[in-house]
């Protein structure tokens, strides 16, 4: 397992903890927790060595589509493809934000 960390600018937002995904090969688990301030801290544990550039690209693609909320995001990756990673991260952020609307 390799550990990666990215800190990205984010918008202060009221979000709730969320957990999505699946612990299985070709998939990943994404946990989101609210964080004070205006940063998104993304911690990644991945079974794919040397994947930092790929992860950076996926995060940049997500940022181009949605505004990241201030959060701590923990990811356990089991060799998911970039397409699966993008879907799971967006699913987690959507769920964390949707809970706020319900509260």
């Amino acid at each position, binding site marked *: 397992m390799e550990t990666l960390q990215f800190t990205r600018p984010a918008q202060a937002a009221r979000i709730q903890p969320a957990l*999505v*995904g*699946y*612990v*299985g*090969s*070709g*998939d990943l688990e994404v946990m989101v927790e609210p964080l004070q301030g205006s940063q998104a801290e993304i911690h990644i544990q991945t*079974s794919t*060595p040397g994947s930092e550039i790929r992860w950076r690209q996926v995060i940049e693609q997500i940022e181009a589509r949605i505004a990241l909320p201030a959060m701590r995001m923990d990811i356990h990756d089991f060799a998911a*493809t970039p*397409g*699966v990673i993008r*879907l*799971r991260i967006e*699913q987690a952020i959507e*769920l964390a934000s949707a809970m706020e609307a319900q509260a």
Partner: protein
Amino acid sequence: MNCRAHDLIWIERGHLRAPLPGTELPDWVVSGSGPVVVRRANADYGWIPVGIRGKTKAERQAALAPINGIDKQVNPYSLADTKPWLNHAERDSHPVLMTLCRLATLLNGHLLRWGVTGSLGYEFATGEAQLHPESDLDLVIDAPNPISREQAATLIQMIGTTHCRVDIQLETPWGAIALAEWAGSSAQVLQKTNTGPRLTATPWADVRVSSDEGVKPC
């Protein structure tokens, strides 16, 4: 003859081509031996998308196999039919085989058509030892008709605690979903289709993808 994801096919390595034009397959693929695994991807008519396992986990390569070059094909379901785990030397000691012995009875008892994929499927098909102490058990359940979320949850409950990590995929006509995720509370689940992954609440009922999804002529 049809090919679906996880099928193992035997083909001369020299017949394979790289998935992207202008690229070449690495030497270890061309000089290697053993069956290749059908992948979930789109391919030109007459070609099957495959993956090749190397000696290490880092050695995984995508390629395209010409349909008319296939020598032999084995699917995960036929691997389970002959119950090869019963004759395995480690059936009473390896966590994966101990788990499989129990789950086989459970799944057969539910009249499910199921198969063995991953490294154990490869081992059953080739006789080459693939299991290591940290191996997972990868299974697929053929699910042409809907399995309700309640049925999935009941199955997960009956599977209970296992000696090793178990990954069971439900193979719908449109692509695969994880049994455990379908059994859980997430409104949408990830479905791996031939045209890529998507999130859906209705994995069996979607008309947006063409009806030949998941099955390729070969």
